[in-house]
């Protein structure tokens, strides 16, 4: 079981405003389906093989936070993004920057110990409930592969209910 902690996020120098915003989006999205303080997210690879279990620690949102993040599409996407960043961090990557639009990715990440010049791309997608996370992952992997930065990439799909994380790599 790999711990992920939404209550104490340390994503290096990523803008504090963004981290706080996405963290609240995540807890509002979680709160729609689960009870704090812990939710277990199994992680699946591209072939739907279960690889790991993540134990996500989080806190319940305030009423004001729920009202402010009542747009399900936005809160799901932003919430998925912060959880995905914690996942790649747990996998040994450093999150360094948001990617420019249309690069085929959302974030730029660097493997710990490797030079910045050998960065990876990260593409994230969120699903509030049900849906087809496995199909979504494949679409996201295609997006990573066809984006404008010719670098290897990771795609992560976070589904809040039932909780699942789908993880794939695209080598370029």
């Amino acid at each position: 079981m790999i711990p992920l902690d939404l209550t104490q996020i340390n994503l290096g120098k990523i803008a504090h405003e963004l981290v706080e915003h996405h963290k609240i989006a995540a807890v509002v999205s979680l709160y729609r389906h689960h009870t704090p303080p812990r939710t277990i997210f199994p992680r699946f690879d591209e072939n739907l093989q279960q690889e790991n279990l993540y134990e996500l620690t989080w806190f319940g949102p305030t009423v004001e936070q729920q009202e402010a993040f009542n747009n399900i599409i936005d809160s799901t996407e932003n919430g998925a993004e912060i959880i995905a960043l914690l996942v790649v961090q747990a996998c040994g990557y450093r999150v360094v920057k948001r990617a420019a639009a249309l690069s085929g990715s959302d974030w730029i990440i660097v493997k710990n110990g490797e030079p910045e010049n050998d960065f990876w791309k990260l593409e994230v997608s969120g699903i509030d409930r049900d849906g087809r996370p496995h199909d979504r992952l494949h679409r996201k992997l295609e997006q990573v592969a066809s984006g404008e930065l010719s670098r290897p990439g990771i795609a992560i799909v976070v589904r809040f209910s039932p909780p699942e994380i789908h993880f794939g790599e695209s080598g370029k």
Partner: protein
Amino acid sequence: MSFFDHPRSQDSDRLAFMAELALKKGDRSTAKALYAQAAFAEEEVATLVPHDVPRVRSVLAIGTVSLWLRAEKSEEAERAAIKFLHVGGLTEEGRHDIKVLLERAWRETEVGKNVSDGGYAVPLTLRLVGGKVQRGAAPAGAVRTRQEAAIGLLYRVAERKRGLDFRLRGAPQINITEQMNVYEVPAVAASYGISLVVAGGHNVADPNDRLDLRDVVSSFLSYAAAANRGFDELVKVVGEETYARRFAVGFRNIAGDGSDVNSVQFFSEDPEINEKAPVALLDHRVRLVLSNALRRTGGPTPTRIFGRLRGVSLGRVTRVDILGDDGISYRCTTRTRELDDSLGQWLNKRVVVTTLPPQTDKNGKPLIHIVDIADPASELPADIEAEKPTQLGLRRFTGQVARSAPPGTEQLDDPRCHGPSVLAQVIRLF
């Protein structure tokens, strides 16, 4: 030294994020100001990165130019792009991407000159990927047919958004064309891009009654994403079946064909749209799925004619002439007097025509009603038909070419059908 961790790089990310939040709240002027500050900060760091870290330098240079464009400062974007291209230290791909952005800055400046006061222009790109498509080069026919289809669909989306009745034929009404013009701009992209700009017209009678062009492009992208999920989903999103059918035809004709073009991605570089609309990808599978749905007749099993489209007659009744691969000329008509927007592009090209079983009119003349006309690439290849119908999500064509069918016609296996031999006898017209 870490350039991604440089305080000014972090400033840039923070400011760009704040700009996005402002944009979501509809505060465009604040968003533009914040994007400009973010671009300034990003440029400072990009300039510091030495040439021996070319990927990082490229990422930050591309980020700089993108942010200037988001701030709607085309001239700053142009200046920064030229500076980075001149100084160098970029990857080959980075240079290409900056040239793409530079082209965009130039064309936005040009299109801006043609937009009436208070108007704006919204970019839309169809990126062709795979097949015979190379970087900056693609088969001319594959580009032209897709570009025509996309422009036709944009006007259809505008009509739908305006709540107009479905137009059976002819050009869009003047109250649409005077408010919306579609410009073609230089095609540049990582693979091959069809770049369009939807801009406001000059002569808007009532400025309060302007078409929301962002809504038109955003809806176009949403319909494309729905088309990816199949015809039924498209009907759900469009909310009206006749329009949905036309959009299905258009997106089917744009989708990957499995030979010249593998897939087509749709996106807009407009930040407001880009934040909301998904990047839609239409590949050959989508073409086959939509074709299959378009050929459902809800009754008699359709018949197919393979041949060349030789003529379209726009009289009281729309007539379409096909020279079949079997050497027989077929004259067909449309069911609803509707003329497909995309029909012109198939003239003198090889097509597959799906028709209802032939009938005769009150004078005893043969009538063949067209259900669908498409590129032969919209046909299921035999191997897929045999092996992967379920995987493709298709209703399986159960029939084989009937033994009695003349070359060029294919009969689907259904006892209600008149049979291809009847078809061949009835419709020898010329």
